[in-house]
């Protein structure tokens, strides 16, 4: 579970775009239907091979379903890695959570005060058509660049970040004026 600070509210939770995930899932679908296609194909093979398929069809279907079940387990692990990858924008910071695999997880965060520049990069035909891309956030500190990959509608996310940054900047300006006024 994500632990929030006092007075912190979640503004946006954004997962990666579905298209790269779907494209990477295609091999799972192909491997799953392959045994059935092979069986259908076996009916037009020479008689001696067809007899082997027919005689051992029970075993063939058993091991085919075992294969599909193993593919299903691998797919669900793969989907979990996709699903738990997300960015969370709150009113105080941006959190980038990357689920690399089941036993490897990377969580990074950047506070709005530290953000200097936000850049969007949309490269390729599919990202342009389906409106997803990478967001690069440059921080004021010596930290490395903060990269959010395959984010859907990056312009909207950039606008949210810019608006929140502006809000925080105004609040700190008012606070500074108030402190200076009192002094």
């Amino acid at each position, binding site marked *: 579970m994500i632990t929030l600070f006092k007075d912190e509210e979640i503004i946006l939770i954004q997962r990666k775009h579905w298209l790269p995930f779907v494209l990477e899932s295609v091999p799972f679908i192909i491997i799953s239907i392959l045994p059935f296609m092979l069986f259908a194909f076996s009916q037009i093979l020479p008689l001696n091979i067809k007899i082997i398929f027919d005689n051992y069809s*029970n075993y063939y279907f*058993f091991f085919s379903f*075992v294969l599909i*079940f193993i593919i299903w387990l691998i797919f*669900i*692990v793969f989907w979990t890695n996709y699903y*738990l990858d997300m960015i*969370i924008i709150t009113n105080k910071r941006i959190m980038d959570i990357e*689920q690399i695999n*089941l036993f490897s997880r990377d969580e990074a965060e950047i506070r709005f005060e530290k953000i200097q520049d936000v850049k969007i990069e949309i490269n390729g035909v599919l990202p342009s058509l389906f409106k997803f891309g990478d967001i690069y956030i440059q921080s004021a500190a010596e930290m490395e660049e903060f990269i959010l990959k395959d984010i859907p509608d990056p312009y909207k996310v950039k606008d949210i970040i810019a608006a929140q940054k502006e809000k925080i900047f105004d609040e700190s300006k008012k606070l500074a004026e108030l402190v200076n006024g009192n002094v």
Partner: protein
Amino acid sequence: MDLSILNTIAAFVLFGITIAFIIVSWILNYHWGRYEISVSRTFSIRKIYFIISGIMLLIILLLFFNLKQ
């Protein structure tokens, strides 16, 4: 071909995937419970996962008993 060898292999495979299913489910449940933000969504994901896996395991079990006949 000696069918008893194939039956033994099938029994070992069935045992192996059952163990794999238990371990994978345990790890996934841990991840969904710990890192997912919405509790209701976690519940739905678990439900879908166990229904699909249950149906598939049932089919495999039926096919396994069909081997003996």
